[in-house]
């Protein structure tokens, strides 16, 4: 017994063997050079503009703003990309693709810009990783097959596991130390000791506000707040994906009337030709029944 349903799926696609081979070439060309590089380049820029400094520096990773801002910004692209891959292909890797793409961009920046060019040690500019959150989001969509349930449960978990995931990477930097009689965390000291001429200390947006009134559980209050905002943001970006990801044709019928065809998969089929005619000089062999049933998109 085969592991996958691949044979059944290929059979159902009614593509000839050369069509199947061509589709795999399209997969390769479209996925890696176009989809993946496009996502990592644009998402990286998008993220750096909205939440860059919290991710650049170890001494910006506080209990409030870092925990709040990062999931909200990182759930945006996954929302739109997940819509696209799920709606058109039922592929549940939109979030993981977005987040790993973002990390590829970040690590290129860390190695070439921060480490080789600006001479900062890699631990000082280590980024956060939300691959764990992305995996939860993608798995939730695959298992629930509902974007609404994904927004409620998946996105909530997406934001809530952010801090525990990062703690394994950045926990060391919260160790206390005393310098010149002042208590500092190691992260504070690293921010102080590595001179940043153009980024003076007051640029840091950290630990400001009254969240400490919640018994000192600042991280979890921030995470809850972030989770709720992330749900809203995910929903908005899912709809942005819907808006941007619409596919339709304007076709001219037999009597010259232009009409909008939302079902892009039917274009070029015999059924389409029977209903809408064909371009001049093209005479399709019309079968008694359409090749395709009425499609849905």
């Amino acid at each position: 017994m085969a592991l996958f349903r691949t044979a059944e799926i290929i059979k159902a696609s009614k593509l000839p063997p050369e069509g199947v081979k061509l589709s795999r070439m399209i997969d390769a060309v479209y996925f890696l050079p176009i989809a993946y590089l496009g996502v990592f380049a644009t998402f990286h820029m998008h993220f750096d503009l909205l939440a860059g400094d919290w991710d650049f520096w170890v001494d910006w990773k506080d209990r409030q703003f870092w925990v709040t801002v990062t999931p909200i910004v990182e759930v945006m692209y996954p929302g739109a990309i997940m819509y696209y891959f799920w709606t058109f292909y039922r592929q549940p890797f939109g979030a993981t693709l977005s987040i790993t793409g973002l990390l590829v961009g970040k690590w290129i920046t860390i190695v070439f810009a921060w480490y080789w060019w600006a001479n900062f040690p890699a631990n000082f500019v280590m980024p956060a990783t939300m691959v764990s959150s992305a995996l939860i989001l993608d798995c939730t969509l695959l298992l629930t097959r509902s974007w609404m349930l994904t927004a409620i449960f998946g996105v909530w978990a997406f934001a809530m596991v952010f801090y525990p995931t990062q703690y394994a990477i950045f926990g060391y930097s919260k160790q206390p130390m005393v310098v010149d009689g002042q208590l500092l965390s190691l992260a504070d000291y690293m921010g102080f000791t590595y001179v940043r001429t153009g980024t003076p200390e007051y640029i840091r947006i950290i630990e400001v506000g009254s969240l400490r009134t919640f018994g000192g559980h600042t991280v979890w209050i921030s995470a809850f707040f972030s989770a709720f905002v992330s749900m809203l943001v995910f929903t908005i970006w899912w709809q942005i994906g819907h808006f941007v990801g619409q596919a339709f044709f304007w076709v001219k019928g037999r009597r010259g009337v232009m009409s909008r065809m939302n079902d892009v998969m039917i274009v070029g089929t015999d059924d389409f030709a029977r209903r809408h005619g064909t371009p001049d000089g093209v005479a399709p062999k019309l079968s008694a029944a359409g090749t395709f049933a009425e499609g849905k998109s």
Partner: protein
Amino acid sequence: MNAKNIFKVCVIGSLGMATLGLTLAFNASIAAAHGERSQEPFLRMRTAQWYDTKWNPQKTAVNDEAMLSGKIHIAEDWPRAVVKPNRTFINVGSPSSVFTRLSSKVNGTPMFTSGPMELGGDYEYVIKLRGRLPGHHHIHPMLAVNGAGPIAGPGGWMDITGNYKDFTNPAKLLVGGTIDTEVAGLAAGLFWHVLWGGLGFAWIGWFMIRPMFLIRARVLAQEGGDALLNDPVDRIVAFGMLGLTFSLIAVGFFTTDHTYPYTVPLQAGEPKIKATHLRSDLTMKVLAADYDVPGRALRMTLQVTNSGETPLSIGEFTTAGIRFLNKVGVANNLDPNYPAEIMAQDGLHMEDESPINPGETREVKLDSRDSLWEVQRLMDLVNDPEQRFGGLVMSWDASGNRHINSIAAAIIPVFTRAAGI
């Protein structure tokens, strides 16, 4: 290809070769400063007045310590166009972190975070550094003002010798032990990034090994396509991936929590640094000032009163970290290590150089004249939106005691030789 196209290709090819040739023929010189001269004169002359700046020693080795120290007077005549120094940070202007900063004290108070400074206040800063990246570096003290940006102080050259690979930056922890900030947490960070990245790529790869787009789209468009694409094995893998993800998060969190039981949040306080104030037996009032554009000179007429008990001689005028001295200034305040390119040892002139006696009020014509006005781009003063200048005038008594006055006034540009005070 016809003759016209061949001609076009030859022209384009020739241009390309010429461009390549130019690239090889001309070498762009190294940029070794921070564009401090491009800061507008009113920003440099009327905000932070730097004096007694020292780069010590000027040559150091990797891992050895050095000191950047000096004093800064926050001008009373702070420009309206610049945000007031309510939140400031004494910084180091350097090409990347060529030194690590070990401590920074302003008037004896540690300045790890930013704090307010007082207009008219004086602050002495001592920044302890450790050589990190070998090279010949231009180092500035720098006053960063929230809302206004960094204001560069005078720049001096510091050399670091040795090998970067030998550099370590040990930091002593409160709970015991020492950690090297260069590599602290690096291995754990890389491990988790590789692990999560590997899982992420594995998840994507799981779907890449099967038809991804066209075939699935065609099947999805059919009745029953959605159900066909809902492969049971994917659901099993998804459950497994969820379990693995939550397990790894828990293991990472609790292991780290166990490893580092004592932690503190980022510290975001604000040092309240008490200012000192300039001391002088002289009172000075600028009666008139002009800027002689062709003569590269700032000429001012001061009304000076000595209310002290000893005669005082004016010896230095300093602004924007640039020093204009006469013989008195050279005798009392010449630091041989101060960068020569921002100091004019014969740049200060007076009609009457005799000391100002106790109780005397005199009109002093003070003329600071040197090409430094142009080289350091302070002559761009004529393009400022508010034509005023500021600076410090230093005087000495016979015993070498220094008296410092902060002055500021409107200034009139003189564009031709014929005009003047």
